[in-house]
C-alpha cells in the first residue's frame, strides 16, 4: 500500500492516474497538499518575459565575448607573473647548484631497474577526475558562506 508521501510525489510529477484520484478522493491531507502545490507554484511563477526583457538579450554574445576577453587579461598577467617567478626560482636554483661544494661519489655497484613509462595524464602530477569532481574541486562560483557543495 502506498503512503501519502508517495501520492504527493506522484502529484508533483503531474501523474493523475486512477490510483491517485481514488486516494485523493478520500484523503484530506493529500487534497490540502495539492491545493498548496497549486498555490505555491502559482505565486512562484513569474510572468512571461516582457519586450523590455527580451530586448535585454540583444547583443549578449558580443558583450559576453568582451567580458570574457576582459577577464582573460588579468588571467594572462597572472600567468606572466607566475612564469617570471618560476624562471627566477629556476635561475636561483641553477646558480646555487653550480656553485655548491661537490662531494666526491664512488660508485660501488650498479642495479638495473625496469623502465617505468609515465602516462600522459600523470605527467602533470594531477589525478584524473570526473567532470563533476573537477567542477566541485576547483570551480564553484562565489559559494555562500557556510555552504559546501
Amino acid at each position, binding site marked *: 500500500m502506498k503512503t501519502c508521501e508517495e501520492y504527493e*510525489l506522484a502529484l*508533483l*510529477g503531474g501523474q493523475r492516474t486512477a490510483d491517485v484520484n481514488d486516494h485523493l478522493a478520500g484523503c484530506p491531507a493529500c487534497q490540502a497538499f495539492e491545493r*498548496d502545490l497549486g498555490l505555491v507554484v502559482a505565486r512562484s511563477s513569474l510572468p512571461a518575459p516582457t519586450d523590455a526583457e527580451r*530586448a535585454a538579450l540583444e547583443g549578449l554574445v558580443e558583450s559576453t565575448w568582451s567580458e570574457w576577453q576582459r577577464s582573460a587579461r588579468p588571467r594572462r598577467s597572472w600567468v606572466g607573473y607566475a612564469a617570471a617567478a618560476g624562471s627566477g626560482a629556476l635561475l636561483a636554483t641553477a646558480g646555487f647548484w653550480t656553485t655548491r661544494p661537490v662531494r666526491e661519489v664512488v660508485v660501488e655497484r650498479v642495479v638495473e631497474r625496469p623502465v617505468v613509462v609515465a602516462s600522459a595524464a600523470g605527467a602533470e602530477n594531477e589525478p584524473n577526475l*570526473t567532470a563533476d569532481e573537477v*567542477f566541485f574541486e576547483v*570551480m564553484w562560483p562565489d559559494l*555562500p558562506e557556510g555552504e559546501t557543495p
Partner: protein
Amino acid sequence: MPAQPRTDGALCAAFLTGDKDAFGELVRRHQEQVFRLVRRYASTPDEARELTQRAFVQAFEAARRTMPRLVASPGDVPFRAWLLRIAVNLGKNQVRDEGRWKRAPLGAVDERSSPTPSAHEQLERAQAEALTRRAVSALPRRQREVFTLRIDGGLPFAEIASTLGISEGNAKSHFHYAVKRLRDEVSALARDPGGTP
C-alpha cells in the same frame, strides 16, 4: 542530409582551442534558459542580462580550468549542467550581496506589468512576488536549485536530476520539501512582511 548540430561539449572544446564562432553558438543556444533562471533574482532587465553574462563567463572559465583534467574526452564537458547550476547560484548570491527584497522594486513593476492591471493590483502582485523571492532564496541550497530549475527553467525532473547529478527521485523529494517549506514561509512572511528571512 543536414549536418548534426555540434554538442555543447564539442562547441566548448572548439571555443577553447580558438573557435570564436563556437562561443557565440553556445551563448545563443542557452541564453534564454539562463535568463529565465536569473530574472527571479534581478530587479531590472539589465541586471538579469548582467547575471546571464556572468553565468556564461564563469561556465567558460570552469571549462577552461577543468577540461585538461577530465578522464573523458574534452568533448564530454557537461557545459549546460554547469551553466545552469552557476546561473541558479549567481541569482542567490545577488540577493545575498545586495540585501534586497524588503520591498518590491517599483521600477520593475512598471516594466513587467501588462497595460491592464490597476496600480493597486500591480503593487499587490509585485509584493507577492517579492515575498516569494525571499522565501525561495531562503530555501536550503539543493531545494532552491531544484525549485528554480523546475519553476523558472521549466525542466522536467529527469533533466533536473542530470543537471544536479542526483537521482530523479531525489529531485522530486527536494521539490516536495521545498513546496511544503515555501507554503509555511510565504504564510509567515505575509503576516510579517518587514521581517528578516
